[in-house]
């Protein structure tokens, strides 16, 4: 697919094409409207799309192209072929169709897994396992009367009952289906949402907004205690770019659009948002706003809170929005910050005005190998101190380096006299105009050299970023062979980064041992973002669960312990995954009782009936 190609643009050869596209975008738009290139549209579901080339939203029946019980597209998955070699199917990714000979050895060596011991998933959804919908008939009839698309199909409902937490996917693979939404409704514009929310209030049903479904905080789980009819409000059909303002460099976009579509459509016009969370293939703009998402290239473009200029949200009390598009305001506490991170508890984000940027002229990947993790962290800290972080800079620890090595890092590192048991690697991405990128690159490599870092080439950098997009597919492969795992993240002041990584990793190993995990777990960390005052740290954790009667429970206990350890070591509850229901128990500790009370009182005012009853956060 082309959109993935664009993610991995690296060579100077493609920059010329990009420039052409930028120019073409300018030429296209100019005759239309001299004033502000505004293409305002009437909201009508049946109205013909003005840009047919880019107007193919995620289908209503997502299960037709995506896995119902795993990550991503149905056609893309890892498997071990008959020769025992790993391969990645499909045609979508750069890795697609490739054979990865060393993955098997790494997999068996790291987890003590064996290709003979399989734990296959239930092949298809057993429809009888899905409870019949608890319908609020008058509500459904009113929805239909309003011309909205509604479904009670079990497959549709099951698809929207989960995110991608381990326990959620594991249950699906075993064919266990818990409480699922009773109805799915697809609004196609802001006023549709207003209608739905109004009816929901009238008939007292529970609404759960659904964007891309990539949550890893149990945010989409239907609360067990909810007795009302649960309606999943799928925003996927609200995916248009409503206008682009080239003078102010802003775009007004419907919140259901998914990351890759937004970026592709903007690219066609010569722009980008630069917001690239790892989930951008599937996650939606509204979801980013509702969870305070962070993108890989935030060093240039900022996190979601820096990108939004205006947000429109439908709440049971009505629509909340600001009255102008001023870049900053002093009008009391910023109401956007009630919306950002509200996790679907207050309403549905319908439209967002975002900052956009011209597509960068030049992009260059890079990588640096450090003798050990300490040196790597010290280098990142120095880069942050000098405020010269590239668009993205990430540091993998040694375990993760060894993991990445199976298919990516083919260089002979022994040449550098680094101990392969300690070395770690940083991947870099530079963006901007060519001269500046090269200058910037030199500056960063010079700093790295001071910490014993050696440049290890563009390819390795690029492969490192590619790994990000396939890692979730790898989890599915693991689950076919008794290996379960997950990632979680935190943010932490600079001086605590090393201590936190070491302590959390060791805590994970120890907890696994104490809980009877037979094989040493994979417990790795990486620094994925740098800030002035600290860094974002990611942990990957996986283990072989053969011999455990309740592996998911063990997993959850270990993750719980790891989170306790993170908090005890000065890490935050979450950098960008959000709280959901998974991390709710620590909210009070994290924001103080008063803080929690403030949030509760907002909820109380905005949604007294608890229509948005997903029970996240509070």
């Amino acid at each position: 697919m082309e959109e993935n190609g664009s993610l991995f643009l690296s060579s100077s050869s493609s920059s010329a094409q990009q420039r052409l596209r930028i120019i073409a975008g300018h030429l296209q738009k100019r005759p239309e409207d001299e004033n502000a290139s505004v293409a305002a549209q009437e909201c009508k579901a049946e109205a013909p799309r003005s840009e047919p080339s880019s107007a193919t939203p995620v289908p209503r029946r997502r299960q037709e192209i995506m896995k119902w019980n795993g990550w991503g597209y149905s056609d893309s998955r890892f498997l071990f072929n008959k020769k025992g070699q790993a391969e990645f199917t499909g045609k979508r990714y750069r890795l697609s169709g490739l054979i990865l000979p060393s993955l098997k050895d790494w997999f068996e060596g790291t987890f003590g897994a064996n290709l003979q011991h399989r734990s296959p998933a239930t092949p298809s959804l057993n429809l009888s396992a899905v409870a019949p919908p608890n319908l609020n008939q008058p509500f459904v009839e009113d929805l239909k009367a309003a011309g909205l698309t509604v479904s009670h199909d079990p497959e549709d409902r099951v698809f929207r009952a989960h995110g991608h937490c381990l326990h959620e996917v594991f249950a699906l693979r075993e064919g266990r289906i818990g409480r699922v939404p009773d109805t799915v409704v697809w609004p196609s514009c802001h006023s549709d949402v207003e209608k739905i929310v109004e009816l929901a209030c009238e008939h007292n049903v529970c609404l759960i907004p659904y964007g891309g479904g990539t949550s890893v905080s149990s945010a989409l789980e239907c609360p067990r205690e909810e007795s009302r009819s649960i309606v999943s409000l799928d925003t996927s059909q609200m995916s248009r770019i409503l206008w682009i303002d080239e003078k102010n460099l802003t775009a007004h976009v419907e919140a259901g659009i998914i990351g890759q579509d937004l970026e592709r459509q903007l690219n066609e016009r010569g722009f980008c948002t630069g917001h690239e969370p790892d989930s951008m293939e599937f996650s939606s703009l509204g979801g980013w706003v509702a969870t305070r998402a962070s993108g890989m290239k935030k060093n240039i473009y900022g996190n979601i809170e820096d990108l939004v200029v205006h947000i429109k949200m439908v709440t049971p009390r009505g629509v909340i929005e600001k009255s102008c598009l001023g870049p900053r305001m002093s009008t009391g506490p910023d109401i956007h910050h009630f919306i950002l991170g509200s996790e679907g508890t207050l309403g549905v984000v319908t439209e967002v005005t975002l900052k956009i940027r011209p597509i960068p002229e030049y992009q260059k990947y890079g990588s640096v190998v450090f003798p050990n993790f300490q040196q790597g962290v010290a280098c990142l800290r120095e880069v942050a101190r000098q405020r010269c972080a590239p668009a993205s800079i990430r540091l993998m620890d040694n375990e993760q380096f060894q993991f990445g090595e199976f298919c990516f890092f083919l260089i002979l590192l022994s040449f550098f006299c680094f101990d392969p048991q300690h070395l770690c690697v940083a991947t870099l991405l530079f963006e901007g105009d060519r001269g500046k990128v090269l200058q910037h690159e030199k500056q960063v490599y010079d700093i790295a050299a001071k910490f014993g870092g050696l440049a290890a080439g563009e390819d390795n950098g690029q492969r490192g970023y590619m790994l990000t997009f396939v890692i979730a597919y790898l989890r599915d492969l693991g689950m076919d062979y008794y290996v379960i795992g997950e990632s979680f993240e935190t943010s932490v002041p600079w001086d605590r980064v090393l201590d936190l990584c070491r302590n959390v990793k060791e805590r994970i190993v120890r907890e696994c041992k104490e809980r009877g995990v037979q094989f040493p777990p994979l417990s790795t960390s990486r620094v994925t973002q740098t800030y002035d005052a600290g860094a974002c740290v990611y942990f990957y954790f996986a283990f072989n669960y053969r011999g455990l009667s309740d592996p998911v429970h063990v997993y959850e206990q270990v993750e719980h312990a790891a989170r306790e350890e993170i908090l005890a070591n000065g890490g935050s509850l979450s950098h960008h995954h959000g709280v959901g229901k998974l991390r709710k128990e620590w909210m009070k500790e994290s924001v103080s009782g008063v803080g929690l009370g403030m949030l509760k009182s907002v909820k109380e005012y905005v949604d007294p009936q608890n229509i948005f009853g997903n029970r996240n956060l509070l």
Partner: protein
Amino acid sequence: MASRALYSVSVLQHFCMLSDKILHACNTCSVNLSLLPSFNIFFRGNIKHISCPVSSESGDSTECVAEEASLILDEMAHRLQLSTVRFFVFTLSKAFKRLFRSVCVNEEGIQRLQQAVQEHPVVLLPSHRSYMDFLMMSYLLYMYDLPLPVIAAGMDFMSMKFVGEMLRMSGAFFIRRSFGGDKLYWAVFSEYVKTMLRNGYAPIEFFLEGTRSRTCKSLTPKTGLLNIVMEPFFKGELFDVNLVPVSISYERILEESLYARELLGIPKPKESTSGLLKARRVLSEDYGSMYVYFGHPVSVRSLTEGKITRSQYNLLPRCIPQKPSADTHEFLNDAAFRLVRIQEENMVLKPWVLIATLLLQNPDGMDLSSLAEQTDWLRHLALAFGAYLDWPDHEACSEVISCSLALHRHLLSVSAGHVQLSVTDAPQVESTPEEAVFHQAVVVLSCASYRNQILHVFLRPALLAVAMQSANSNRKDDVYNCFNFLRNMFSNEFILCPGDSVQDFEEACYLLMKRGVLQVLEHEIVMSASGHSTLAFLSSVLDPFLQGYQVVSRYLCEETNENLTEKEFIPAVRNFALKLILAGRLKCYEALSSDLQKNALAAFLRLKAVRKVKVGDQVTLKVNKIAVNSLEDTLGKSDVTSHQNSWCSSMAMFEIAI
């Protein structure tokens, strides 16, 4: 017992192996040691960090403070050198060979330590009864190829010419005995210790009790250093820290009579090299065996679980020293007590300890036969209460006793099958009655230091036994109240974990019930018919302390003038007690012990029966005579059963005081 088997390694054998060992140890240690000089330099680099907060508070320039910090560091830092260590090992192995028949070490403890050192930074917490303690620790670790510890030693050692420097080069670093107000000193010191710990250069060794116990009773632990070594864990700088309690016991203590004299007010000679040389005389005597028991490593992480919220350290930069919060302080105190109790429990006891206990209870002496009989009885009681007794299995009881008596003959007179504690080496010509009393007191206090080693075994049942005597009824809550009162009264005297009174009570009940001494019913505690002798023995274990505290309170009530200063207190009480003894009104020589007197005063201060008032630069003691009187009455009830109502009134007083 089997699980705690000791391996007796004769010193001689050690010595023969020495030359091989040195070569071997050289190879293993040098790697470790080569880091150390660079450590001090590295640490100097950190001084700026420490000085900044201090200088901004005091207003002095940063350079000025840094300079001062550097001087403190010079005074404090160790300079571990392998050559010095080798010299020490060589000399010590000779000395130890002459002093001790054998040095016994639990080798599985050494193995555990080896394991622990690999996992996390280790803090060694030996008990402190003698100067020998840390020399022996370093010697043993060297012999077993373990990393040599750096030791927090009192400043008084440093004033010893040459030896101070030698100790420094064998890994001691020196701390001032008191530096309460000196923030910079505290900052440099704590950072110094923490940096060593964090970098895992060497195990840290210090004494929880802070100083040598002159009485062989464990002392109330100090928490300052414990906080310092735990802080890197609290602040997330270390995943865990292993605390290894080490119990060192001596069949005969080198400083035995020295301590007794010190307790009687003959001042401790200042540590000096010539003093050490004079101590050579010591080398010619037989000190029996020495025991070193390395306990199970205690993980700070598991110790703090559910008790410390580490996130409280999140909001300050970690280089800024932080006073422990109230709950941290409580935790530290509790942890320190528990560690000292582990030390106590692992302390190896010799038969002599039992004999000394019996001889002290029979000041007029005992026949050898009844001594043998009672020792055997006591042995079984002690074992039932969990004492860690090293009793030679295959020898007859009388044989064991005569061996013990021989080793401690300087405290005894044995004639015609009758044993008595008595002065043996004093001049036969009695000079003055006072001197005679002091001579006898030296013997009694020396002997008491052996009895004290087993007190922790009998303490809780003994408190219960006394409580049963003094309670108005057999009702469980009455007995518990008395128990609790005594426990409070004596909490400066013995190791009683704060807040554990219910557990202690239950433990005492359980032990005595198991022995068939008591029957504990739902609301009543009843003595069994056969339990009388055990209860009598147990209450007389505490008798010297009850009497001693009564003497102190009587003194406070009767003798005191209005402006009694803190300094005058000890000599004044001693005189008071001496007069009572000379007048024949007091038989208990232990009342002369300054340790007991200090503890009693501390208890009265804690119970607010006495107040400290600062007048000018002197601290005077203000006595609430009514309160002291009533406390005395209550204590008096346990040996003299008069004053029926005093108990209740004093309990009321006590409650008010609390």
